[in-house]
């Protein structure tokens, strides 16, 4: 899966675009997020709460659609694009 990171998340990771491999038979967004955090441990305190949940103010998109915390169980495959970013601040 392909991750795109924006704003301070890209700065913390040191990369804007990341490809991750997931070993699971039926991979979910949660697996892809774990793979991302394994590859970039510095992201974990920024992305997860103390209880291990996705930070509520972060946006998590799959193929351009907002899925957020409830969407972590959504299946993903290799061609999917995932994105993680803080609240938008254009204009």
């Amino acid at each position: 899966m392909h991750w795109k990171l924006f704003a301070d998340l890209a700065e913390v990771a040191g990369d804007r675009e990341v490809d991750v491999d997931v070993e699971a038979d039926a991979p979910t967004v949660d697996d892809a997020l774990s793979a991302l955090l394994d590859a970039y441990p510095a992201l974990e305190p920024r992305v997860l709460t103390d209880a291990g949940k996705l930070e509520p103010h972060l946006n998590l998109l799959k193929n351009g659609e907002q899925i957020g915390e409830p969407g972590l169980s959504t299946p993903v495959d290799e061609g999917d694009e995932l994105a993680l970013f803080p609240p938008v601040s254009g204009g």
Partner: protein
Amino acid sequence: MQTLCIVGEDCLSAAETLTDRLTTRREGRVATVDCTGSRPVDGAGLPDEGEFRVDGDGRWVGAGSDRSATELLDSLARRYDYALLAGVVHHRLPTVVLGDVETPPSTPIVETTPTAAELDPETILGRIDELDPYISLETLVDRAKASPMADRAGAIATFTGRVRAKDDPADARTERLTFEKYEGVAEQRLDAIRQDLTAREGVFEVLFHHRVGPIDDGEDIVFVVVLAGHRRQAFRAVEDGIDRLKDEVPIFKKESTTDGDFWLHER
């Protein structure tokens, strides 16, 4: 309008070569801007008020000292399809570098060659239409006026967002904002907003343009233009358009102040 800055030795002749190729190969109008200061008009230095001459082939030449490079681009953007600027670097405009010239880290570099002689004009011509276009408020207003619904439109409302140096006199000065966007998804979200607004009674055209990269204080960031039947419809749509852009479109802003840099969502 597609823009290309060319800097380094012989940048003016490189710009002129590209202009010749563009005028013979492309439909659009081409402006060449000499920022090298090497060729004063009539040998008498640049006139304060600006000067225009037309040669025997109907081509005009202008010179003046009353506009910055970006102000000049604003005035060219309505009428020209291409602008080639020789001898100027800008932190946001696509640039060809000839030889060893320092450019700001954010400058989008299209091509670097050791000398002008090694620049292949065909490579540049092949890429120039893919570069980020230079769009001004007037560009969008012209597009709105070209609407097939223009006969029924009595109002154009526009919004321009710009970089505010200070919100309060005591604030640390904001020197620059730097924007990045989620390419593709940002355009989808803007398109959804456009569709919602143009579905309203009397709203005929809604146009957005948001610049990315570093933008200095006082410079324009975002434009929203609405063509509508009546003024109330235009005012409401332009307000809702910018409000929804700020809420929904994945664009991110980093602020650089005299006190330091920070992402806006961290504030």
